[in-house]
Structure formats: C-alpha cells, structure tokens
C-alpha cells in the first residue's frame, strides 16, 4: 500500500504545475436555520484532480459538498452565503439555473438512491433528459460504458431490465455512480461512495476515480484515511464546520500544520 501511495503522490507532483482551478469558494457560510454548519470556508477545486474531504462525522463535509452543486437549495431551511465559482462564473448568481449547474456538477449521494426503475433506465435517465444520445444504440453504449466504469457491468449485464432497487446495497451504490458518470459531468461530487462497498468493489471504484481524473475534477468525501491517501491529490480537513487545513494530500498525511489534523488522522479525535 505504501508503494502505490507514493506512486500517486508522484503523479500528482507532475500534474500540479499545469492544473487550473475549476471551482473556487470564498468565505462560504452555511446555516440550517440557526445552526451554523459551515464557517467561512475557502476551497479551490483544481481541474483534473481528486480532492478529498475528511473530518469527523457531522463536521459539514456533506453540507459543503452540496454547496458546490446547489443541492442545498432543495433544503428549505438552508441558507448559503459567500461566493462559489465554476470556471470563474458565480454559481449562486441569480441568472444561474441550478438545473444547468447540476448537469455540469454531478453527485453521488451518501445513501444509495436508485430510481425504482430498471437498471437500464436508471443509467439512461441522465443522458435522456440532457439529450446526450442520438439513437437507441448510442444510449445503450453510454449505459454499458457507464456500468463498466462503475464496475457493475459484469454483474448486471444479463438483467438490465430488472429493477435497480432489487440490487444489493453495494451494487446500488455503484449503480448510482454509473448513473452520475453517464451524464459526463465536469465535476463529480461523491459523498462516501465506498461506505457500503466491499474491498474489491472499493478498489474498482477507486480505479474509476483515478480514471475520471484524466478528464474531470472529482471531490470525494471519505471516512477512510487510507482511501483519501490513495486516491486524492488534495485533502481538506473539516472540523466543526471549519476548514482546518487544506493542502496537498501528501503534506496533510505526513506533515500536517494544525495539531487538530494530526490528532484526527492519527485517530485521536473523530
């Protein structure tokens, strides 16, 4: 494991010079009613990079992830302040239609939530509503490719018409990943995508994340330090709504500057 870890780091080192910033947040605060869930957070999400969010449960990782594709809009009591841009455009600008934003910034949720439709229709839904396919065989190609990337194809290729809700928890999560990938988003937000997966599927998803990095930005929330170290190039550590430390993964795990980060990754708080 150490070996592959080092390998990732070196890849990252080469990539950093050409990386541009895809999304940028400045002074973001999130309130649920009176609860101050995110406190004055600045984050840069680099293009073609995997950024990991780590931190103890309830620290606001999911909340901040939802800031990036405005899913917080769907929560009535939620209020977001500050500035967040995607390629320089303020995503909270009144002119922005969140629907258009979410087509570019896809999301995999913490709990698997397949549609109660067939496996095929689950994956084909995004391409259908965004008009990504010209014809039926095009659509079938997209579905197959997406399911393969999510390491699910071999398990479901014979029962594409079976209900997606009839899959196991881990399969459902991979189906949701395939569904998100099928719309080819520019940024993919993944909220603990591997929490329900066995080590083999986890490795496959991590492989997918690594592959996605060649084209997209990926933001992944994880509770597994090893996973963050394996797949990400940048890591943000959240604690009680604050962004405590945001740096290259290498630095965070080997030489954190904040004592809270160090105690978290060594398992003393959390």
């Amino acid at each position, binding site marked *: 494991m150490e070996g592959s870890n080092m390998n990732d780091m070196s890849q990252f080192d080469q990539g950093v010079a050409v990386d541009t910033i895809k999304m940028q947040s400045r002074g973001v605060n999130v309130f649920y009613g009176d609860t101050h869930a995110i406190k004055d957070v600045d984050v840069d999400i680099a293009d073609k990079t995997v950024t990991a969010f780590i931190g103890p449960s309830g620290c606001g990782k999911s909340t901040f992830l939802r800031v990036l*594709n405005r*899913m917080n809009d*769907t929560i*009535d009591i939620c209020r977001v302040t500050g500035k967040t841009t995607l390629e320089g455009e303020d995503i909270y600008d009144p002119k922005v239609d969140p*629907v*258009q934003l*979410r*087509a*570019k910034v*896809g*999301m995999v*949720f913490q*709990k698997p*939530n*397949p*549609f*109660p*439709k067939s496996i095929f229709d689950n994956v084909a*839904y*995004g391409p259908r*509503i*965004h008009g990504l396919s010209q014809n039926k065989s095009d659509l079938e190609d997209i579905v197959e490719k997406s399911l393969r990337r999510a390491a699910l194809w071999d398990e479901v290729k014979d029962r594409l018409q079976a*209900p997606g*809700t009839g899959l196991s928890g881990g399969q459902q999560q991979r189906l*949701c990943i395939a*569904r*998100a990938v099928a*719309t080819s988003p520019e940024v993919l937000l993944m909220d603990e995508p591997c929490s329900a997966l066995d080590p083999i599927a986890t490795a496959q998803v991590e492989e997918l994340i690594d592959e996605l990095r060649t084209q997209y930005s990926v933001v992944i929330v994880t509770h597994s330090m090893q996973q963050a170290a394996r797949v990400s190039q940048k890591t943000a550590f959240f604690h009680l709504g604050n962004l405590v430390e945001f740096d290259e993964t290498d630095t965070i795990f080997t030489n954190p500057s904040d004592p809270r980060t160090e105690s978290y990754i060594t398992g003393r708080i959390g």
Partner: protein
Amino acid sequence: MTDMPISTAPARSLYAQDARTKKRNRAESRFRTYGMAAVATGIIALIVLLTSILGNGLSAFRQTYVSFPVELTAERLDPDGNRNPEEMAAVTTFGYLPILAESFAAHLEAEGIETEMGIREIAAMLSEEAPAQVRAMVLANPELVGTTIDAQILVGGRIDGYFKGRVTLDSAERDRNVTPEQLMLAQELADRGMMETRFNWEFITWPDASGSRPEAAGLGVAIIGSLYMMIVVLVLALPVGVAASIYLEEFAPKNRLTDLIEVNISNLAAVPSIVFGILGLAVFINFMNFNQSSPLVGGLVLTLMTLPTIIIATRASLRAVPPSIRQAALGLGASKMQSIFHHVLPLAMPGILTGTIIGLAQALGETAPLLLIGMVAFVREYPDFLSTHSNTFPLMGDGATALPVQVYSWTQRSDPAFVERASGAIIVLLVFLLMMNLIAIVLRRRFERRW
C-alpha cells in the same frame, strides 16, 4: 472437542416464564381478542346488512309477466287507416286499455279458464303500464295494427307481489287494490304456464314510473344520470385536484398563506355534503342560471365535494415518496418538473388513484346535495343529455336523477313494492361501487408493477 465444562443451573431458567413475560403475553392475547371481536362485529354487521338488502332487493330483478295474444284492431288504433304514426299517436293509452282487457278476457275464455270476475276486474290484474307498453310497440311499428300479436304483458304490482310472497290471500282481503279472486286466477294462470316471473332487464333500463305502478319502475335514468355526473366529477376533479396537490406540495412556498389554504382544504373535506348543495344552489342555479337538476350542475356540486378528498389523498401520497428520489433526479440535472413527473408522480400514482376512487365512490353515493339542486324531481322520460336537438350546452338541458336520489324517492312512496325497488337500487349502487373498487385495484396493480 472442547474441554470447557458446560455451565449448568442457570439463575433464571428459559423454560419458566417470569412474571413480566407472563404479564406481557397476557396483554398481547387480550389485545388480540379485542381485535378479533372488533373484526367479528364488523363482519356480522356486514352480513346482516347484505342479507337484508339482498333478501329485500333481489326480487326487484324478477318481474311477473302474462302472455296472451293481443288483437290490435285497426278501427280503434288507426281510425283513418293510413298507418301514419303521427296520427296514430292521437290514440292515448286509454284507447289501448279496452283492447288489452278484451284480448285478455277472450284468451281466458278460449283457454277454458272460468272466473266469476267481470272484465274490469280481470283487466285490473294487468299493470297500468301495460297499455303504454303496447302503445309504444305499435307506434314504433305501425304495421302491427290489424294483426294479433303474442305479447308478454306486465302484471300489476300486487299480483307480482303474490308470486314473490309479499301479498297473500289474507292480505288481499284487506287490500283495496287486489282481490283474492284475482290472486287465485293468477295462480291458475301460473300453473298453466301463462304467467311467469322472469329476470327483469327492464328494472335496469326503464325510467322511473309513478307511485301506482311500481312494477314498471326502473333505474335507467338514474344510472345514466349518475354515470354522467361521475364523468363530470372525474374530468374536473382529478386533474384539478392532482394539479393543486402537486403545486401545494412541491412548488408552493411554505408560509402563512399556504398553511391557511392547507387548513381550509382539510376543513372542506369535513364539511357536511348538504352545504355543498346549498352552495351549488346559490352559485350554479341562482347566480349562474344553470338548469335545475341538470347533470352538469350535479357533477359540479359533487366535484366541489370530491376535490378536498382527492387533494388530501394526493398530497399524502406525494409526501410518502422518499425525498432521496427527488434528490437523485435533481442531482442528475433534472428540473423540478421533470423530477416530479418522471419519478415522484408514478410512485404516488397508486395512492392518487385510491384517493380518487374513494372520492368518486363518495360522490356516487351522495344524496343530500343533489336533493337541494332539485334532482329529486320525478323523471319519466330519458333525458336528452347530449342535447342533439336543442341548442343548450351538453349535460345542461334536461333534468336528471341519480341512483341514491332514486333510492331516496322510492323509499318515500307508499306502495310496499317500492321497498323492493329501493333495495334493488341499493344492490345496483353496491355493484357499481364494487366495480369502481375493482378498477382501482386493477389500476393500482398496473402502476405498481412499473414501480
């Protein structure tokens, strides 16, 4: 395998129930008994209800007819001899009465059946509706005049009641409308196979008849009226109700105003239906000058009554769709509208359908508001609801009646034969409700199969 000793003599044996467990189990079995008692009471009540209704009402579907040749003498029915139906219509049912009476008496004589009764008394055994029945037959087919036809003629309600056990020789002694001699003659005719009680489609197809001829009263007009009103309710209440619920549940901001609307909708569902009748009377008839007792007005009133039911059921089933489904769709870049119509609505559909059918069933059985808008009127003729000839809006013209109103007005009549009619109408109503529930189940199955 193992050298470890097995621990014996547990402090609390699993074989003996301790006091708490016993208490818990007793409470549980008590609760089960209450539950079974409640269910049993319900079933007994249902059985009693059904047996009483079926016992009273099934006979309405059977009616007694007498068959004999009727000589349609041309001199009386078509004095001018040109078989022109318009001129023949000048001969009223009173012109047909003697023809029937004479044919009937002549037939008795020909068959060698002796009776001391005069022709008047013999003819009184036939239904008052019989001349109209023959007249309609003749006017529809003028060529029959001058021939002798083998006709099945409706007999009077008392004679019919005799074959159904409602009228006896004893009760006939005290009855001004029937004599024991008539009953005995009827019995003889029945023995000879000339008079028989057979299945009676006319109960379902004929319109209502006046109080003195229960044997000819049918449900046709009421069924058509109810049907049209159900169509109006379905066409208006379902789309409006579902659209309103979707808006309120998914789009409307949550504020004081929507709270107020919500409370009011819940209250409307509890408003006594007669209030909707008063509203309909004031708004549709007095203010908008719609025709009294037209099916459109009835349908509108029932729509108002059904809307809250549909809205409440629809909102409940929309709310029951897990939010994660909406989030999944929104997260993929679907618009709110797409997430609702592609994912939420199909999942809510079974609930919406159930609510709608319950609302429709309520509306089908509703009497009070219809009485207020004048539907209690006695409708003798099939109304021309679609207004093919007049220039009124469809469903706005002729007055209508509805199944429950028909039940109500039949129970108001003095002749005991109408009790049977009313119970028969209730059976028809129940069959309709049963069919609606079946449709609901079938639709629900279909939608559920598609998850």
